[in-house]
């Protein structure tokens, strides 16, 4: 990030706040300025509340000891929820992916967050992500019957899925390992689809009655 030229017309305290906002993703210099000036106009209690939330976030958020998702307690709400289907675990790359899947409302099982995917060329191997925790969990929890690997649909995500499949196969051959289907996005025209998507869509075709 290139440092912002400090304006002599803006007080140092405001310049510092602009620089702090710029550390966040998708915040450029203009947006940072707008946010900083908007903060100035806010009532004191709102500013205090934002500042308290920011300072507490690192202290209060920990990783769930079961699923490795972010949580305020040693076990997250999803893992503690008795109404969830405990026979199925969905493996995702990032904590953000849990919330995307939850928002869909289509999944009622448990999660496991890897915090990354295998990327050998960038030096990220199995030890750098939480695969070991997943295998321990699968070995120790007899209720688990299926693991859905929902890693990203690129080569690194695929390699991670295949690696997990290999390890779970070695650890417990009775557990079914599945992968998210890949194919045409909803609302799209076939005319504009690329070759890889078309070939996967054909490979993952299903009977019409079985579709949602």
């Amino acid at each position, binding site marked *: 990030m290139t440092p912002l030229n400090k304006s002599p017309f803006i007080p140092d305290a405001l310049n510092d706040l602009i620089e702090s906002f710029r550390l966040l993703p998708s915040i450029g210099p203009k947006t940072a300025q707008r946010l900083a000036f908007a903060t100035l106009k806010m009532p004191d209690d709102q500013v205090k509340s934002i500042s308290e939330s920011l300072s507490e976030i690192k202290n209060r958020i920990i990783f769930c000891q079961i699923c490795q998702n972010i949580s305020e307690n040693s076990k997250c709400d999803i893992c503690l929820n008795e109404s969830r289907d405990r026979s199925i675990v969905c493996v995702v790359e990032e904590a953000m992916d849990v919330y995307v899947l939850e928002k869909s409302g289509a999944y009622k099982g448990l999660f496991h967050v890897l915090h990354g995917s295998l990327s*050998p*060329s960038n030096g990220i*191997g*199995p030890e750098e992500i939480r695969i070991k925790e997943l295998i321990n969990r699968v070995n120790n929890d007899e209720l688990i019957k299926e693991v859905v690997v929902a890693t990203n649909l690129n*080569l*690194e995500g695929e390699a991670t899925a*295949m690696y997990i499949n290999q390890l779970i196969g070695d650890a417990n051959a009775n557990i079914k390992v599945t992968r998210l289907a890949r194919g045409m996005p909803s609302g799209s025209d076939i005319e504009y689809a*690329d*070759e*890889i998507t078309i070939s996967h869509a054909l490979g993952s075709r299903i009977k019409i009655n079985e579709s949602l």
Partner: protein
Amino acid sequence: MKAYRRRKKFVQTEAIALKVYDFGDADRIFVFLTPNNGLIKVVAKGIRKPKSKMGGHIDVLSKINAYISIGENLSNLSQVEIIENYNLIKPDLSLISIGFYLLELSEKFSVENDPNNDIYYHLSFTLDQVEKSVNKDLLMRWFELNLLALAGFLPDLYNCQISGNTLTEGDHLFSSINGGLVEKKFSTNTDNYIYIDKNSIKAMRFLSDNEWSNVKASNFQIKNLQKIKEVTKKYIQTITQSSLNSEKFLSNVN
């Protein structure tokens, strides 16, 4: 004075995607190996979004036709189409790990703005062979030695690196620091040398001097290939002054 704006330069090129990392909110940076421009780093804007028109056309370990708008700092990928997706490699974890290894090695020995990049054709040919060949170890050793030759680092396998004498047939020592073989009588500190038997030396010479079509038709003993692997690994580590990230994954998976 009339306002002047520099016109953007566009390049259309074949490329193999070696590496990728996330950039910003929805972008990715790809490292391409190209035949006429060497290594190029390009930003693929919005490629992580499901609606991206490029997303399905490009990934690591794909040969593509890329349309790149060259920028002052970073270049932008404006269009892309697949030439070869290596569909037989990608469903197989063992082959993927070999692919990652070949890509990382090619990146280590390539430079930016190289107009005659034979390493591109060597990598492209070898990736095609990964799908077809039975003996992957042999293919990797052949790739490594010929990559070293193309990059100008082929070890001298015919002359002693200390005395300069032509080597007689027999067992010798390999010195990574000296870049080739050394007669046994010159070794003072054997920790810096790897002992290499005469059959492994012959196999190494054959691999570096021959096309793949000749190599694949020949018989090699596993112990000779293992010795060549040990020697080239140490030699590549000495040249690049680092170990390869993908090497650990390769041994983990295979």
